[in-house]
């Protein structure tokens, strides 16, 4: 489950930032700084994750996707039924 989210997240980051080396990045570092995502890039990432994983990500929760690890934790939580 978790792997699936991790893989999707990595793929969508590369779609937005083609030069990103997700595997080599510090999973606890600031996500947007690590991959140089501006606010439009970040919104596009949220859109892509919403579409591919079917997870609703309200704007108020954006801060919870602060690093790769935080994002995986959050997305895994949100996907749990109920």
């Amino acid at each position, binding site marked *: 489950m978790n792997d699936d989210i991790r893989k999707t997240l990595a793929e969508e980051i590369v779609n937005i*930032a*083609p*030069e990103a080396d997700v595997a080599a990045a510090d999973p606890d570092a600031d996500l*947007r*700084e690590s991959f*140089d995502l*501006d*606010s*439009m890039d970040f*919104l*596009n990432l*949220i*859109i892509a994750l*919403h*579409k591919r994983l079917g997870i*609703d*990500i*309200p*704007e*108020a929760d954006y801060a919870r996707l602060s690093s790769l690890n935080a994002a995986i934790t959050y997305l895994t939580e949100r996907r749990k039924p109920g």
Partner: protein
Amino acid sequence: MPSLGADMEAGTLVEWLKKPGDAVSRGEIIAVVETQKGAIEIEVFENGIIGEILVQPGTKVPVGQPLAQITVVGETGKAPAPAAVAPARTAIMEGTRAPGPPVAPAAPAVTAGVRRLASPAARKLAAERGIDLASLSGSGPGGAVISTDIAAVSKRPPASRKPGLDLAEMRKAIGAAMARSKREIPHYYLGTSIDLSRTMAFLERTNADRPPDRRVMIGAVLIKTVALALRRASAFNGFFRDGAFVPSKAIHVGVAIALRGGGLVAPAIHDADGLSLDDLMAATRDLVERSRAGRLRGSEMMDPTITLTSLGDRGVDSVVGVIFPPQVAIVGFGRPAVRPWVVGGRVEPRQILQASLAADHRVSDGHAGALFLADIDRMLQEPDKL
């Protein structure tokens, strides 16, 4: 060859998307030109029929040189007066740079038919991967090379940067435009702090029930605010050319977009004052995508009547811009940040935005600039009216 920026001297015709005899309508994309700022799609500014192609792909020509002849619709007779494709527009934009009648290039003409048939996608891919189209056999209609033909001969991943964008060249172009700006334009600078709390609350309400792809970002609100404020501040919207300021009735906001890996473009959102926040959001997204893919249009490069620069929600508190000639003003927004703010005699946490204006003293004074910034502030206190 249209002038696609203040310091563009020449461009390379990369591809014709139309051939002699094709009917074209105003605004249609007819060719791709490579400039220091990457590949730009060139639109036609007349309704008509393409006549003779005067410049073949791969040829670098100076600004002002006709690229093709076009017979304007509505003209009758057997000897239609040819109109130059792009320079007509250039003449309007540049004022003094009126081109003469189209002249065929002195270089020996290359027969258009010799050119390899290929789909635009294949052409792009081939250029990216450095593959000579002539060396391939095409499997498309009429033997045209299509993208799968390219993929078949190359397993190399596409270059991360689009073809034609040479960062060193772009840096030169930016440097030349900014040096000219600092040399010629007597800038003055103003700054103000704007309480953005009401606007942020408005966005929170607006976006709460929306799926991510329909959410509005603060950037769209700022573009709209600047555009609306310009309706009453004509001294900041237009061009300074040949010693005089020509205000523009239309409000085309140039939006500074950083390119991944370096470099900067500031293409126009046309008639931004008349667009809804949703329209502006869509327009911004489209511009960012096409800026990075190298598919901006000539009009987007030529038309901005003012520029807006914002370094987004990360980074710095304030930004003060350098005017992009021949424009006369640039508005800068820093990062909104929560600050202690005095409201009604009490200190409260508020979202504060640093706004700046750099403007041309040949055209306006600080007083007018202050009113313009105050107007932007006032509108951001009533976001429901935007």
